[in-house]
Each structure stands twice: as structure tokens, then as C-alpha cells.
């Protein structure tokens, strides 16, 4: 249980090898992608004018995609615009090029089993027509629902595309990594259980920063006792941001996804349908559903909650949508706050460390190296339920709870921090009309 180092060396973002790896997953021309990526770097470095960048590859773009949708001078060469990329990815805009037209049955195909004089195979065509009609109907209703669903939600500032509900980060074609794929940057944590004193500061800080509804605890501190011990031990359990996350794999909408930039496992709040399959599939029990209107249960998240891709991923989720620890994804995109998280900042014991686990110089790796040195190279570490193959990205320093471990009351009470531990006690729905009638006589 000491496998905190990955075998494969970290790739460098921006290198050709990295670009090849990323582009290999695309159905488009790797060569063209590489050339454009190199030229884009030249533009950034000031070695190429924006005009030249735009002119170059124009023909190849048209040939490959039928449209050159790179930002033009007219757009002011804005940075990659989520609105534009979403619009491009929407099926309506793709047109017939991306949707293969089904082969049309011949008008008279009596030759397949009917003899001369046998009537044309009208029934089969009628059936095919009906199926086609149903498909068109489904698409129509899908569009209608999509418009209705997004109409009810206030448009977010600066991201009209998301408010339009043009789809997921996945549909936008960028910013999403498949489960199981090793990424050049993989955020994770090192949690030193030998330092943790179970004070619950991390839980409260998370609740404050994310404006969580009453009883929603994203990090959760389990106090337990081993048979041979006198003192309690603690396990800080939060989302493990697994590389091979079961929740991502089972999600029927792509709402639960891994962010390409840093491997964080996030939920697109605009897309999640609240089926709770992620909650059922997660072996750690890290998901917390929004069973009702957050405002009714003290949810106070005020921010926009959208990351740089325009995807709504942060804060207390809206009603009917799944939430969980996010590793503060907006912070990780902010150069000044990258490598911090509310829980990490709050921990007075310095037990929590967040950063890129692939970077030997990141805070968690430096901390791990230092603790190893202190321990003379004999530092016990583990990843939670590692045997399940989920490749969790939290490395714990200490011993995992044994099968004989027993849960005990910790030294600190959630109520002392104004937190509710038993969420079921507050999950009380309103009284139905018939009970009210019965009560009132």
C-alpha cells in the first residue's frame, strides 16, 4: 500500500509527444492538429502574427472540417471561447456532414423475396418511415426540452453559451479526459493522518466556501478505534478524484467528468439529471445529493460556479443534482490560488496538501518527500480501497483502518462547529395536503 509514485514519467503539456497523445484520441488529422498547435505557440511567443496564423492552414481546415472556426481577426482573436466551441459542437450547427444519412431503401425492392408482380414492399418502408418519424420526433422534443430546461435558469454572466444549455463540456469537444487515462497534470492530495487531530476545521471551511446546504459534508472525518489502540484514529474521507473513477464511467450523461487540465473529477451542474448512479457506483460514499431546494436547507452559495471552460462545477449544487468535494476547481485555475483549497487552508495541523501529483515539486510531493526523510524512508502510506482499481488520487500517510476498526465519537462534535452530521434528520419534506387536512380535522 505504498504506491504513491506512478510508473510513467510525467509528460510535459505543450510538447509534441503530449500533443500527439491527445490528438490520437481525435478522429481528425493529427498532423494538422500538431502544426496548428505549434503555430499557436508561435503566436503566443510573438514569433508569428495573428494574421499569418489565421491564413495558414485555412485550406486544410476547410477540407478537414468544412469550416474554419478558429478565432478570426474580426473576433479580436479572443482566447478560446466556450460559447463558440459549444455552438460549433451543437448538432444543429454540424449539419449533415457529421450525421451519416441512412441508406434509403429503393422504391421498388420487390426483388429481395418477392416474385414479379408481387407488390412493392410497402409495409417495410412504412415501418422504416415510422421509425424515422419517431427519431425526428425525439430530436424535436429533445430540442424543445432543452430550450425549456434552460429557459428556467438565469443566464450566467459572461457565459451565454452555458445558459443556452448547448451541452456539456464533453460536447464542447474539449476540457474532458476519459476515465483511466493518465494525464500530464493530475491534481491530488497528500493527507497526513498521523497529524490529523480530528478537529473538523476542514469540514467547516469547505461548508463555508461552498455555501453547502445543512447536513452536506463534502469532507468527512471518521473517528475510529483499533482494538490494540488507546487513542482514536482519524480518516479524512472526501472525493478521491480517482483516475479510473467509477462515477465518471457510469454517468449516463457525461455530466460527471474528469477535467483535462488537472484530472479533477467534477459534475456539470447544468447537465446532471440526478439519477444518482455516480453515488451508487462510488465505493467511498463521497457523493451527496441535493434532495431539495438548497435555499430551504441553508444552501448559501452565491458565486457563478463556472470554471474557465464555462462549465458550472463549483459550489452547492442546485436541486436534483449531485454534489461532492470538488477540490476547489476555480482556485486551481487561478494562478494566485492554484494549489490551495478551503480545507487545506483551514487545517491548522498542516495535514492536508493539494497539488499536481505528477510534479515532483508540488506541495504534496514535497511534503511527502520531507516526511519520508524524517521517517528514515519508512513512512507508511496508502490509498483508500486501492484494491478496487479506481486509482484514487489521495495519498494517506498512516495506516488504513483494519477490518476490526470500530467507529467511535470523535473528540470534536459536528454540532460544535454549527454543522449537522445526521443529514437524514433535516431531510424532512413538507407535509402533504391530506395529512394536513387530517391533522386539522
Amino acid at each position, binding site marked *: 500500500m505504498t504506491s504513491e509514485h506512478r510508473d510513467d514519467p510525467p509528460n510535459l503539456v505543450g510538447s509534441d509527444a503530449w500533443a500527439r497523445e491527445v490528438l490520437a484520441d481525435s478522429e481528425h488529422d493529427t498532423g494538422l492538429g500538431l502544426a496548428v498547435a505549434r503555430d499557436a505557440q508561435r503566436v503566443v511567443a510573438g514569433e508569428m502574427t495573428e494574421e499569418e496564423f489565421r491564413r495558414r492552414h485555412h485550406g486544410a481546415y476547410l477540407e478537414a472540417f468544412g469550416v474554419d472556426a478558429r478565432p478570426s481577426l474580426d473576433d479580436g482573436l479572443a482566447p478560446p471561447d466556450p460559447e463558440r466551441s459549444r455552438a460549433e459542437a451543437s448538432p444543429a450547427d454540424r449539419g449533415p456532414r457529421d450525421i451519416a444519412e441512412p441508406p434509403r431503401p429503393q422504391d421498388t425492392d420487390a426483388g429481395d423475396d418477392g416474385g414479379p408482380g408481387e407488390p412493392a414492399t410497402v409495409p417495410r418502408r412504412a415501418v422504416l418511415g415510422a421509425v424515422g418519424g419517431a427519431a425526428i420526433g*425525439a430530436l424535436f422534443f*429533445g430540442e424543445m426540452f432543452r430550450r*425549456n430546461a434552460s429557459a428556467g435558469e438565469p443566464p450566467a454572466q459572461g457565459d451565454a453559451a452555458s445558459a443556452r444549455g448547448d451541452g*456539456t463540456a464533453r460536447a464542447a469537444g474539449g476540457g474532458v479526459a476519459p476515465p483511466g487515462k493518465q494525464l500530464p497534470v493530475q491534481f491530488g492530495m497528500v493527507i497526513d493522518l498521523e497529524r490529523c487531530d480530528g478537529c473538523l476545521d476542514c469540514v467547516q471551511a469547505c461548508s463555508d466556501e461552498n455555501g453547502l446546504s445543512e447536513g452536506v459534508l463534502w469532507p468527512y472525518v471518521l473517528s475510529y478505534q483499533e482494538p490494540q489502540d488507546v487513542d482514536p484514529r482519524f480518516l479524512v474521507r472526501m472525493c478521491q478524484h480517482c483516475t479510473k473513477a467509477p462515477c465518471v464511467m457510469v454517468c449516463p450523461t457525461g455530466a460527471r467528468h474528469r477535467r483535462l487540465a488537472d484530472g479533477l473529477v467534477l459534475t456539470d451542474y447544468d447537465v446532471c439529471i440526478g439519477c444518482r*448512479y455516480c453515488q451508487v457506483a462510488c465505493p467511498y460514499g463521497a457523493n451527496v445529493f*441535493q434532495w431539495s431546494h438548497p435555499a430551504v436547507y441553508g444552501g448559501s452559495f452565491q458565486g457563478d460556479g463556472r470554471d474557465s471552460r464555462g462549465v458550472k462545477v463549483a459550489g452547492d449544487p442546485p436541486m436534483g443534482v*449531485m454534489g461532492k468535494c470538488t477540490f476547489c476547481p476555480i482556485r486551481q485555475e487561478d494562478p494566485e490560488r492554484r494549489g490551495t483549497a478551503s480545507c487545506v487552508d483551514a487545517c491548522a495541523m498542516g495535514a492536508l496538501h493539494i497539488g499536481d501529483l505528477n510534479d515532483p515539486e508540488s506541495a504534496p510531493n514535497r511534503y511527502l518527500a520531507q516526511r519520508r526523510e524524517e521517517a528514515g524512508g519508512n513512512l507508511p502510506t496508502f490509498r*483508500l480501497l486501492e484494491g478496487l482499481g479506481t486509482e484514487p488520487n489521495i495519498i494517506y500517510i498512516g495506516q488504513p483502518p483494519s477490518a476490526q476498526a470500530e467507529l467511535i465519537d470523535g473528540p470534536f462534535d459536528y454540532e460544535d462547529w454549527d454543522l449537522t452530521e445526521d443529514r*437524514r434528520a433535516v431531510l424532512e419534506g413538507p407535509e402533504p395536503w391530506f395529512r394536513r387536512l387530517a391533522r386539522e380535522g
Partner: protein
Amino acid sequence: MATTQRPSVDETGDSALTATILRPLGRPSWRWMATLAAAAVGLAWFAQAWVFQLRYGLIVTNLADWGYVGGIPWGFYVGSFIWWVGIAHGGIIVSAAVRLFGMDTFAPVARIAELLTLAGLANAGLYIVIHLGRPDRVVSSILPNLPQTIQTSPLAWDVVVITLYFVLTATYLTLTLRHDLHRLAGRLPRAFTPLYRLLLAGHRPGEQAKAERMAWWLALGLIVLAPFFLHGGVIPWLFALLPGQPGWFGPVQGPQFLAAALASALGAVTLLAYVLRRVYRWEELIDDRVFRGLSRWVGLFALLFLWLQLQKVVTGSAMAPLSIETAVDAVVATPLYWVALAMLAVTVAHVGVQMLAPQRFSVGRTVAVAVLPLVAILIEKTLFVVEGLMYPVFDLYEGVPGSYTPSWVELSSLVGALSIMVLFFLVAVKVVPLIELKEAES
């Protein structure tokens, strides 16, 4: 709509048989109206419960989170979903048995069974939607992302196979219905003429042989789809492929789900056939042999299910890995589980007795016993979902094993789904002949 050559008025002649088949299509009786009213009330009750849930969220259920409190995120809705998909198998299994294996005994109930499949699948789809926190997004979130999600999500597979099953069944039913509608033209209620014209779009007198061939292939497709990709495959895989619930794991789940589905499905066909025979005095069309045959198959699948449960319990509680043993021990310690198994055992025993003493056959008793698996499987499937979630691998938190009983809103969904089934048949019985002409004549 395609223009249709109106079929000649009276091809069938006025045989007594045709008149018997057409008996339900006349003016509705007071009993029909009363049943309609009861079903409408049931549906209305469910509708207000669902509106209540849509307004306040899934908080009105007794579902909750797991991980630091002992809640169950999936419960009665998912159990009922499995149950309805299972019932939906009944139709096509009976109908395909007639068409593919020449089991003509069941021919009179083939169409009733096909209609049961359609309504059962509709209810299964309904349960998926009721279960969601954001049902308004079901199309906009699932469809555009299907090319990606289909690669790894069992729930995406599930949506696809249920849709496919529905389309295939509806096509199959339409193909077999066209022949009858054509032959009975002029004797069918005028009020539904536009519907008949739609169903008969492009009909040619010579199409029957081809429609038969298409129906045969569709039946084959459906009967292959069920064990491999529906109740013997995708539905149990929704559970058995997950890493954290040992109670759901195991290769026995596929066969076990399928056996349960077929036992409950054939029970549902038996019940429907019995009710329709009584109401429309169809004793000569649906004779006792149908019920004898159906009850044997119900008994066989109930026996199979019991045998597979035995496998699960014996292997799981002896020397299995600790997490599996815990999960199986929990199942064994649940009294309701044994109630469900006892109901199935009664069905099996009844079939045995009936085979030993065939002269003591009673249709009423046979039907009552065939209905037992229906109830038993709903109980067992809900327990399967709930107990799987109560005993996860990661059990070091407050509240293991947790607790759950369905709320009034959740239970109202059963009233709603049963009302939908009743309404569906009330309408169907007035619109289309429920017994195939050709089958009845032969």
C-alpha cells in the same frame, strides 16, 4: 398519412368466432366505465404525488445519501423499474414461443401478451423518469452525449436497449395487427377510423406472407435480445459491474434476473388472460389448456429462480470473501426475503401437485398461484437494490447498515403504474381485436 385503399367490408363473413372476438369493441359497459373511473382516480393520485415530488424534490421520498449517514440513494423506484422490465418480457416470450417454437396452445393470448410488453416497457421508462432529480433534462442530457456514454455507462446501455425493445415490439405488434384490421374493416368502431388508416398505411392485400416473415425475424431478434441484452444482461449489469457493493456482484445475477422476470411476466399474462376471459366470456377462445400451460412455465421459472437463490446463499455464506459473506448474511437475515421465496415455493409446489393430480385442476386456483411470483419478485427486487446498498465494501461510517422504507410518494407510483396498465388495456380492448383472427381460426 398515406392514402389507403379501403379494404372490402365483409371479407370474413359473419362467423360466430369473429363476433366473439369483436365482442369487446362495442359500446362500453357500466363495468368498463367503472373500471376506467377507478384507474383514472389511481392515475390522478399518482399525478398529484409526482407533482409534489417535482415541486419539492426527491426529499419527499425516503431515499437519502450514504457515506456518513445510513441512507439508500436507490430504492423502491429502481426495484419497480426492474419489475416492470421483467413483466415486459412476458409478452414477447409467449408470442415468440408461438411463432418460433410452434407452441400453438398460447396463440389465443399472444396479442394480449404483446400489449402487456408495450405497457410494461412504458411503465419501466416512466420509472426511470420518476426516479430522476432533473427529469426535464432526460432528453437534452442523455441523447447528445450517448456516443460517449454508451462506451462505459450501463445506464446508457439500459436506455438504448429498452428503447430498442419498445420499437421492435411496437413494430411486431403493428405487423401482426394489420392483417386483422384489414380483414375486419367495416366491423370496427368508426370512431377510430383515422387510427386504423394510420396502422394500415400502404397496406396491400398480398403483404401478409411478407409481414409473417418479418414478424418471425422480429420475434427471433426479441427473444435473443431479452436474455443477452435485457434482463439477462444489461439490467443485472447495472448493479453487478459496480466495485463497491458485494451484494450485487456475481455471475449468478444475469440468470437470476431472467428467471425472476419470466416467472413474474408469465404470471402477469396469466392474470390478464383470466380477467379478459371472464369479462368477455371467452372460454371457448382461451380454454383451460392455456392456463395449464402457462402455470407450468411460471412454475418452471419460479423453480429456476429458487435454485439460483440457493446457489447465491450457499456459496455466499460458507467461506466467501468477508464482504460478500456480510452481504449474503444480511439477505438471509431479512424475513421479507423468505416471505418472497415462500411465495415462489408455493407456486412451484402447486405445479407439482397439479401434475400429480391433473383431475383436480382449477383455473381460479391456478391463476391465484401464478400471481404469487408477481408480488414476490417486486419484493425481492426492491430488497436486492436496498440491501446491496446497505452493505458496501466501505462500511466504516455511522449508520451501516442504514434503513429504508418507501414513502407515500414512492408507493403512490405503484398505484400510478398499475392504473396506467389498466387504462392501457381498457383502451386497447375497445380499439383492436385482442385475439388474433388467424390464430383463433386455426
